[in-house]
């Protein structure tokens, strides 16, 4: 490593770092290195056992750890060097043409000289303080994920989760998958911050979500034994005598993330505080370059967003590095970057994305203010996008529901996806062209009943587990419901199961009549059960008894 000068060094090997390395070396950069302080590359991807949202280009419908495997294969095929177990302890000569990164491993320090540095250092988990928050058993939700999904150790037997954002909801679901009892998800806000589909996944399994509540205290002698939850009024003040004790041996904090900007701050890049993006973020151009020439950012470090955004930002930054190293022309860089930015705008549209889109644009504008508006050709395409206001959206807004005049016989899909999530996995998954999302992908899916065969592929494909197939004409008294199932044990055909409703309440008994699983479904089984007809609209989950003797 010593003596070489790298074209590009990527700090952090999560989705943003890996895609940036892939993009820049695909475009001709020769000496590209990815540095990570962990044992393994992949950042948080290997903790993510759920399927991702987004489009095909963002690996939608694929589980996070598999995306990690795909990206790592691409990285190694392209000859990108990966260095693990190397924490970056500092960046020196940040302003110079050749930047000096110093790494520390277990027994040595190393120096990496590089023309361009991409900081894709991700995020750090936030914490909150309350009496008992330092007790063993109180941990970040990321820690719980590491225990479960990397080491297959349960963080607790009975766990309370604080925070109903996407991270809290997803990990609560993963805990259920790991056989942990989730005693509740507590959220200080009066609404669920994450996607409803994620909330629905755990609610149908009976997990209560307590809104306008927070943790008052964690109690225990040596570790958490009890967690006291308290209600909050509209001013976020505790409601007197509203304490509710929960027996729990672990409390997982999912109270947000902060961009991990230590390295960009140390290097001297200009930063700005932006609440929408999770705190202090480095100013960066539409090309992802910071206020210091040759230092770029991508992913959560540039603002807390989603993996799909990180993937596109990584590609955007990779293209800029290739351009700045003279591997591609400014025209061709501008062309692809413009398309990428438009797609980033697409990911950032509608209720969940719009505030972040505005925040990102303000970061770029602030960057140009600092840089003295020396716009030139680089800025031009960005100005064009802003005037075009792409994507203007609000194209289709058909609420997917069973229409009352729907007298069709046979199975049909029911899509319970009511929020503008940037995802079109159902559209690309359907072999019959029955589901339309279109542009932008935040559109709600529209089901064409004439084309829907009720095949159930979309049930397995939807990363939000929000699609069901119902056949009300199964028999005279019974209907069938096909639902996605990712738990153990797997039910067997003929087995009688308890059927649960949307909020996890007991609905009826049901009988398993089919279990479909293909490699393509990747462990999401489509289980078809028969239930009394009147229960078909409510039946959304099954409880499979553990069979004795196994």
């Amino acid at each position, binding site marked *: 490593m010593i003596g070489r000068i790298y074209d590009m060094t990527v700090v952090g090997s999560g989705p943003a770092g890996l895609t940036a390395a892939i993009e820049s070396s695909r475009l001709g950069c020769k000496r590209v290195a990815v540095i990570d302080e962990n044992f393994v590359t992949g950042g948080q991807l290997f903790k993510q056992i759920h399927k991702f949202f987004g489009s095909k280009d963002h690996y939608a419908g694929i589980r996070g750890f598999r995306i990690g495997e795909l990206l790592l294969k691409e990285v190694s095929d392209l000859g990108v060097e990966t260095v693990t177990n190397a924490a970056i302890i*500092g960046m*020196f000569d940040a302003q110079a043409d050749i930047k*000096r990164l*110093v790494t520390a491993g277990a027994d040595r*320090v190393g120096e990496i000289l590089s023309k361009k540095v991409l900081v894709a250092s991700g995020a750090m988990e936030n914490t909150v303080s309350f009496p008992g928050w330092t007790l063993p058993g109180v941990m970040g939700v990321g820690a719980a994920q590491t225990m479960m999904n990397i080491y297959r150790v349960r963080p607790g037997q009975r766990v309370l989760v604080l925070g109903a954002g996407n991270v809290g909801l997803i990990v609560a679901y993963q805990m259920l998958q790991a056989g942990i009892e989730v005693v509740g998800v507590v959220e200080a806000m009066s609404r669920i911050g994450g996607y409803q589909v994620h909330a629905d996944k755990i609610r149908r399994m009976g997990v209560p979500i307590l809104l306008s509540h927070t943790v008052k205290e964690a109690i225990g002698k040596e570790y958490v034994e009890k967690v006291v939850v308290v209600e909050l009024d509209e001013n976020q003040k505790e409601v007197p005598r509203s304490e509710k004790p929960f027996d729990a041996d672990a409390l997982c904090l999912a109270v947000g993330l902060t961009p991990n900007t230590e390295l960009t701050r140390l290097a001297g890049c200009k930063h700005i505080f932006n609440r929408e993006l999770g705190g202090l973020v480095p100013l960066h151009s539409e090309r992802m370059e910071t206020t210091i020439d040759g230092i770029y950012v991508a992913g959560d470090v540039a603002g807390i967003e989603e993996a799909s955004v990180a993937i596109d930002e990584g590609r955007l930054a990779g293209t800029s590095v290739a351009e700045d190293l003279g591997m591609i022309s400014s025209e061709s860089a501008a062309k692809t970057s413009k398309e990428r930015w438009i797609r980033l705008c697409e990911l950032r549209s509608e209720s969940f994305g719009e505030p972040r889109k505005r925040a990102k644009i303000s970061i770029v504008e602030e960057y140009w203010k600092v840089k003295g508006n020396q716009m030139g050709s680089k800025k031009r395409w960005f100005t064009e996008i802003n005037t075009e206001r792409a994507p203007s959206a609000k194209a289709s807004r058909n609420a997917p529901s069973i229409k009352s005049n729907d007298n069709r016989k046979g199975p049909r899909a029911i899509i319970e996806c009511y929020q503008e999530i940037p995802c079109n996995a159902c559209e690309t998954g359907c072999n019959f062209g029955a589901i339309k999302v279109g542009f932008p992908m935040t559109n709600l899916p529209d089901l064409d009943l004439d084309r829907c065969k009720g095949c159930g592929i979309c049930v397995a494909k939807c990363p939000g587990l929000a699609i069901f197939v119902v056949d009300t004409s199964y028999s005279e008294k019974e209907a069938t419901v096909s639902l996605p199932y990712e738990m153990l044990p797997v039910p067997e055909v003929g087995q009688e199961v308890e059927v649960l409703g949307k909020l996890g309440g007991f609905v009826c008994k049901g009988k398993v009549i089919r279990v479909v699983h293909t490699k393509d479904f990747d462990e999401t089984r489509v289980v078809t059960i028969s239930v009394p007809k009147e229960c078909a609209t409510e039946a959304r989950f099954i409880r499979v008894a553990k069979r004795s003797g196994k």
Partner: protein
Amino acid sequence: MPELKTEVVVVGGGLIGSSIAYYLSERGIDVVLLEKSGLCLETSGACSGMCFIQSKKPGPTLRLALKGLEEYDILRKELSYPFEYRQTGGMILVENNSELELMESFVRSQKENGLDVKIISVKEAREKCPSLTENLVGTTYSPLDCQIDPLNLNVGLIEGVKKNGGTILLGVSAEKIGVKNGEIKSVETNEGTKIATDFVVNAAGVHAHEVGAMVDVNVPVMPKRGQVIVTEKLPELLPVPMLDVKYIMAKVRPSARKEAASKPEKLDVGLAIEQTVAGTILSGSTRELVGYDTGVTFQAMTAIARIMLRYLPVLENFAMIRAFSGLRPCTPDGYPIIGEASTVRRFVVAAGHEGDGVALAPITGKIVSEIVARGAPPFPIDEFSPKRFDGKQLS
């Protein structure tokens, strides 16, 4: 313009300024202290807490340091704010015979100046500090050296000033000093307040030159960067703070000072190492003339760590968690500048203590308070007078 009235305005809220303000307020003198940044944010917030007496050059500085020690003894009883004062004794590590020769003559002349100090064997030194390497020819030892927490002392002094009725203005700087007929009249602040005052004390540390320039008094203080590395918290490994001979040489030999100044690219490290009450080990430091840059460099971190490991090999098992740098206010001749200016009456300078600020802060406070209250220092301090720089410009 809002107006205030006081007897003394102290410019600078570091250890020197806060100590002066404290001693003044103890005498019932009305004082306003201006600190342009905040609490412990400058030199006094970025140094170690070693209060070495035996490192002082025999002569006026050593005499001052010995008086300073007495002052500490009073202060630790008087100040209601604990600042981790402990008289641990101190050592200077001697690695070879040529260093030994130098230290023998240094110790001899210190003894002649009344300091309790001696040279001890490696065995004796290792009894006092078992982690010390065997690869030494001996060490000096003085029981008088002590350690304090400079941050707590700074805050404690400021709290003391407040308790005595003094005014502390944080985030406020002096912009203009009004002089009439060669006498101090007022200070105008960046907030637009005009403070009518009889005295101004320039305790602005590395910015003392700028404050002096407001009244055309040459106060040639320059910033010298000292980088320090910090370990994680450790069990007691260093009961005694230590210096190496290079530290002493740089201080006492004018030729060494000149040499260092002529070769800025060569990193000059004089080791000073102590363990704090919290358990961390602070190890420094470089002396670099790099203006007001308070960055840290990998080169310095490495150099300091290597020297430290040479003397204390056991530390290799432990981690360094932080590095920081502070700007030491240094003067052309290595002596602090303390006393009334010759051209402006009641403009008192107290700056340029370089690495001796911790040891000399209380005594400087006492001296300045006497100059203000009685018109003269408690004992002659002509060597430190600002007059010695009259007519000379800071190069």
